[in-house]
């Protein structure tokens, strides 16, 4: 499975998550975001960048609480919460933020 973008084929899993972490770049992230109906703002990017940094160190997306705490640092206490996270990514951090960040979909009992 996969999709064509800017003349390149991107391999994905069944849900459209990039298979190869290294395929990711800002343009393709923008493209995936578009498909999800999301217009990337600076706040969106900050979440995505944090997810990618965390993943590169721990090989898994961070616990939601860790992400929220980081958002508190990035955006201040009014926006460092679940509600704002869902405002940015209405389908949820795992379904949308990880997808746009080019990370695999978290599965398990989550």
């Amino acid at each position: 499975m996969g999709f064509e973008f800017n003349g390149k084929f991107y391999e994905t899993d069944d849900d459209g998550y990039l298979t190869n972490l290294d395929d990711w770049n800002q343009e393709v992230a923008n493209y995936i975001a578009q498909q999800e109906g999301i217009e990337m703002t600076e706040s969106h990017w900050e979440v995505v960048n944090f997810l990618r940094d965390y993943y590169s160190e721990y090989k898994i997306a961070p616990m939601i609480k860790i992400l929220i705490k980081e958002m508190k640092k990035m955006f201040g206490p009014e926006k460092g919460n679940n509600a704002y996270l869902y405002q940015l990514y209405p389908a949820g951090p795992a379904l949308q933020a990880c997808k746009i960040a080019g990370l695999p979909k978290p599965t398990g009992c989550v």
Partner: protein
Amino acid sequence: MAEITKEELMTSAPKKKEPDKAPKLTGKIVKPKIVRGAAGHNKPYTAKPELMEKLGFPGQLVDNWQEAAIRKMGELLEKYKSLQVYMDICVRCGACTDKCQYFLSTKDPNNMPVGRAELFRKVYRRYFTREGKILGKIAGAVDFDLELLAEWYSYFHQCSQCRRCSVFCPYGIDTAEISMAAREIMDSIGLGEKYVVEVLGKVHDIGNNLGMNPKALENALEFVEEEIEEETGIPVKLPLDVEDAEVLLVTPSADFFASPHMESLVGYAKVFHQAGINWTFSTKASEAGNFGMFIGNYGQMKKVASRINDAIHELRPKRLVVGECGHAWRVAYQFWNTLIGPFDTLNPKYPRPQHIVEFTLDLINRGALVIDKSANDEFTVTFHDSCNVARATRMGDKPGGQFELPRELIKAVANNYVEMDAETIKAKTFCCGGGGGLLTDEIMEVRINGAMPRMQALHNVMETHGVNFMALICAICKAQFTAVFPKYGVPREVAGGIHQLVGRALVLGAKE
């Protein structure tokens, strides 16, 4: 069902664009008029060859799949006498027809327990009974062809193996066992469900369902320690791989990752801290869940469980306690002793293993913990019995302990408690809709539908009693309700663990 090719069967489900809609909340659970084939389009993604092969299954549907499936069915009938009995004993009395959450919501007769079992029975009759072999269709016997296999794949993944139907069957036929056998047969011919197969692969490779490596696990535990200290000023520890501890706690890896799961993790840690009990997690046993059960595969179940035994031998704890996870408790309570027992090195004065609910309640009853129930006064709490805990296990030393102990614990830490409709709790509880390997997003429609009866009962107590917290003791229930609540217009925060309530009410620090 229309003719189908092998390729179509193996192809993953088409992605739907429309958001899945939830049934209306009326507070009533009514027996619907049947709609044939209404749910036949649902099917989870199939597992890729490399994932299947890792578990020792054929990579994809084998050429002689029919012959191989029938041979496997023969083996299972021989191995599990219960399965043979379930095949022969049904008298079609109809008692089960309106008892399954997936039938009540989808109206599809193949989602009636008897209808689902019939998909299996008609193959059984054709190849294993004299009448079926000679008379064929007249005797209710049908050739196992691709169309029927496609129906198997769809409908045996619309059963959460919750066993509610078996409570109402006068003969005690357990459709969960039939569904497990069907999945075992499908895996053996190369037709596996991606979600479960992938998760099992991660347990073997990395050690838990989430695929959380030791470094990530350590980071998560440290983070939770910092959070607790920030909130309470008290350095509560979440120890990892400590040797010779009193207690090894084995919990679902979702507790280290997801919300609201993590709130229960905080609760467990506070309990151990305040009771002054030396405890530990284990990287080796960083998963209580055991998806081997969902696919009826004894070998997988044993391989997953063996990690617990390895941890016991490496770390030498004296007690083994299991966190909030429904099917894990079934595996622990019913199967661990056979799979990895007899736990000779653990202290025989305590249950081997013991449920965290029993563990915490015992401490409270002995006065070892100080509780401020008013910390939960903003909540009016109800309790959702998890299917596996309710119908396949026990807690404590009295019959029905699996119903009473969780309720006692909730009432010990919260002032406001309300019970849902008696037809939907305890042994008659409905599944959350996401159990048994169905907790995967491509079948969200199945999950939303499966939650319907529980949602109706919850809606009632929310309307009449202002319930705003449904306490849970299962990682799957927590994830499922958090995902489907918004579809029903219920806030996510209404779902949470019992130990989330415990953690809030527990008073830390020196006793006054």
